[in-house]
């Protein structure tokens, strides 16, 4: 009781109240806490989709036979390709690829049908635009698979089932049976949003005192460095926790994410991550001299943090150096926690390494900031 009374009449309370009043007065911060997170979640969730469908296919069919039409039909059957143009010549088809109007071109030679009927190998040419290496690879794989299926269809009577193979692979997709790409991106983007918003908002509130000149006055009060920073952290923390709730509501309502793990644990660990973000922001603010510098340096830190976190591109695909480097990326740990708790049903036993890493980062950033805070004027 005594402690509580001391807390609420003391310096810390005065500082916290002042910070809260300033934040509430600042329309920009309130806007910043609401608008960008919402937009980022929606845009990331909706716009990023690695699926390869509807690739534009051009066809130069010299054969003009039933067989060739059947091959084209097989290619467009599962929506990976759609025929967008028929060209008279291979050269014209090539021009279409060069101009970027089609992603793949299929050239069926004049003797295609004849060779098939003579039971000879019938080569067809597929030109794939390799500019988008990922799409090209997937397109190539699909072409081969479809042609394989087509060939199996040729060996069996048209009406019958294709012969089954000695090994049938039965693939089950865990956690995300519908393979919805938003389920992959949204938990990651929640992490990205918290990182960007948290570090930007916290660095702004600190650098503003330096920019305006009130910092000097603040340092002259008996308040300790940790009290000043704690007072800055507490209201931001509460507001950013609101962001976590907002983001999870969007995730649940708009993207229908399952939230299979313990939601309270998710909130708790998000709170831990918020300390990391706020700590990072304050740390940057103690380094910089003015707003411009803080913003540019935060860019310098945030871009690698996001890109190495696996929020957008999978960590496993990175070269080994970056894969190891990503271990020093707090966002990576949070993204892993968020994905695990939202999509899988796992507990602390599976996540303790990540939790420990976050705790270390939080202590590190906040500790260094508090240490630097008083020294920064000189």
């Amino acid at each position, binding site marked *: 009781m005594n402690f509580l009374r001391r807390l609420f*009449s*003391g*310096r810390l*309370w*005065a*500082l916290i*109240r*002042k910070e809260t*009043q*300033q934040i509430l*007065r*600042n329309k920009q911060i309130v806007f910043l806490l609401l608008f960008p997170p919402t937009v980022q979640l929606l845009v990331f969730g909706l716009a990023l989709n690695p699926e390869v469908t509807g690739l534009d296919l051009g066809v130069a069919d010299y054969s003009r036979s039933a067989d060739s039409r059947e091959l084209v039909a097989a290619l467009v059957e599962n929506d990976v390709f759609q025929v967008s143009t028929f060209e008279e010549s291979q050269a014209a088809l090539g021009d279409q690829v060069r101009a970027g109007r089609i992603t793949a071109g299929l050239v069926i030679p004049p003797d295609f049908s004849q060779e098939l009927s003579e039971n000879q190998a019938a080569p067809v040419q597929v030109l794939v635009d390799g500019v988008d290496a990922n799409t090209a690879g997937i397109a190539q794989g699909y072409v081969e698979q479809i042609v394989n299926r087509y060939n199996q269809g040729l060996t069996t009577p048209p009406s019958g089932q294709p012969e089954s193979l000695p090994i049938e692979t039965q693939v089950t997709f865990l956690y995300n049976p519908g393979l919805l790409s938003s389920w992959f991106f949204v938990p990651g983007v929640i992490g990205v949003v918290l990182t960007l918003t948290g570090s930007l908002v916290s660095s702004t509130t600190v650098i503003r005192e330096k920019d*305006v*000149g*009130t910092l*000097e*006055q603040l*340092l*002259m*009060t*008996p*308040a*300790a460095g940790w009290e000043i920073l704690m007072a800055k952290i507490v209201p931001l923390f509460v507001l950013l926790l609101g962001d976590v709730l907002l983001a999870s509501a969007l995730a649940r309502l708009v993207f229908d994410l399952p939230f299979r793990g313990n939601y309270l644990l998710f909130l708790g660990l998000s709170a831990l991550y918020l300390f990391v973000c706020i700590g990072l922001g304050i740390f940057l603010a103690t380094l910089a001299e003015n707003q411009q510098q803080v913003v540019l340096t935060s860019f310098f830190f945030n871009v690698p943090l996001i890109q190495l976190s696996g929020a957008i591109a999978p960590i496993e695909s990175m070269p080994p150096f970056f894969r190891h480097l990503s271990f020093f990326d707090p966002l990576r740990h949070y993204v892993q926690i968020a994905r695990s708790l939202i999509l899988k049903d796992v507990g602390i036993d599976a996540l303790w390494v990540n939790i420990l890493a976050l705790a270390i980062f939080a202590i590190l950033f906040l500790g260094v900031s508090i240490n630097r805070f*008083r020294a920064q*004027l*000189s």
Partner: protein
Amino acid sequence: MSAFSPEQTVVSPRTSAESVPAITLQNLRKSYGNLEAVKGLSVVVQPGEIFGLIGPDGAGKTTTFQILAGVMEATAGEVSVLGKPPREARLNLGYLTQKFSLYTDLSVMENLRYSAGLRRVPDAQFAKRAPYLLQQVGLEPFGDRRAGQLSGGMKQKLALCCALIANPSVLLLDEPTTGVDPVSRREFWDLLTAVAAEGVTVVAATPYLDEAERCQRIALIYGGEIQQLGSLANLRDSLGLQRLEVRAGDVATAEQALQASGAPEFVDIQTFGDRLDILVPDAAQGEQRVRDTLAQHQIPINSVRQDAPTLENVFVNRLRQQGSDPPYISFPMKHAGKPKGDIAITTQGLEKVFGTFQAVKGVDLTIRYGEIYGLLGANGAGKTTVIKMLCGLLPPTSGHIELAGETANLSRADVRSRIGYMSQKFTLYDDLTILQNLTFYCGVYGVPQRLQPEKINWVLETCGLQGREHTLTASLPGGWKQRVAFGASVMHEPDILFLDEPTSGVDPLARRQFWRLIRDFAHRGTAILVTTHYLEEAENCHNMGFMVAGEVVAQGSPSDIKGNQPGQLVEMQTTQNQAASDLLKHRLEPWRVSIFGDRLHIVLDNPDQELPTLRQWLQAEDITIHAAEPIPFSLEDAFIGIVQRANVD
């Protein structure tokens, strides 16, 4: 209300039938939402005139300038500059704002070139004019220096050059000398007078009323209206009063005694540093009355002089008639202060080096509880750096500091809770209300909850802000912010108080109130270190140090300092002060000559022998000396002498 209506008093020095007025304002109005900042201003300014605008903060001066410069539209009324709407006259206008509008990251020359480019100055003209202007203001050695690295006085001269580069016909100056030291201020006004002599119309606002005395006509505005308009003589005569300059042993008790006497002769009693200005209808009667009253109270009188009222007398008197004299309410003290006379602050050999620049060199200070110590010096002399080191914000490069008995860790929380600090500008949070700011500082300094309302009320009452405590601080005029900031820095009853230019931009009445409060705190045992550019205020200090280029070059009580000045000070009135000053500065050492309002102050070693020579020199240029009499040194005279002599060395 006002003694004069503006229309009646169009006294213009160079009215000629064919000339178009430089500026015509006809019933100018400007409102921001519900707030009416300017309520029907009418004035005509003639070409080549130096026109002064004076008034308390928030009187509508800045708004008027912005409209004249064409950067803002008037709500109603007619405005013409050089016979055109302001926007069309922009290329013939030079405009200096309070913030100078310089690019701090560009060099002096680059700033100048950019301004020239903006105003279509041909290359050939720029090549001739730029070096000339820089040489005129003494900035030519600094052409490559960045504007951000110049001192306040130099920045302001550069800004003037930028405004003059395009040969404007009209120069608008919005309080350009705020926060600038007395020497630089005078240099700046010497330049302005020279510019006006070339036919440029100058309209200037200034918080320093001695500067305004150098204008040909002066408009006193408050509440968005011109209350009085005319030449200095007009304004003085409008008072219909005489001034008695009374120097007594103890000015404060003398003032109390005179006030208490309630004599009808004393129309107004104003403290000016070490003297009292008493406005009386009849000088002879008044003087007798003063002598009688003070004799009754056994207060010794050093001297009584009869003279015409100063502009500041007029200003203060008018504002008091308006009822805008801020109330004096003594601070609700809750605990006893330190025993007076104990040492609060000492330093030995204090040094600070920034990179290769030595900002502070071997400063030794001692400040005791109950003492007001004034740190004076030109802009950039190192005063603020000393204060920052003393209160633990900056570590000294070398030297010894003892603060409140503490030598090692000056930034310890319990040390800081005994210190009050008011920094140059930024004490308050603009985005909080006044009440929120005050509550915050109470809380963070640990003022007990039950005492807070009383102290906050004291600040609000002292500042005359009761009922407006929920106003956003950002919307307060600068002078009012300073008052609230002072309140915020003393609510926890500090033992040691640092005040860095607390009265900068504060109007004369409020400045007097400030000093009364400062004296109260000292009386109670608070050690106070204060800086100011108003030298007459510095008379309130018990001790003071003059800093030049990081060094304390003179130290002592005000009377020590004044007593140690070489030579005899002579005050003169001439037919052409500016020309006389220019001439004498050339013939004598420059530090010996300075302009004080409508007077010249000249330091002579042997007045009886030198005066006739001076008279001859001036006569040769057709300048007549009306009056010349020896007067005691004021601190401002001492300051100018000390600073300029030290700069020569």
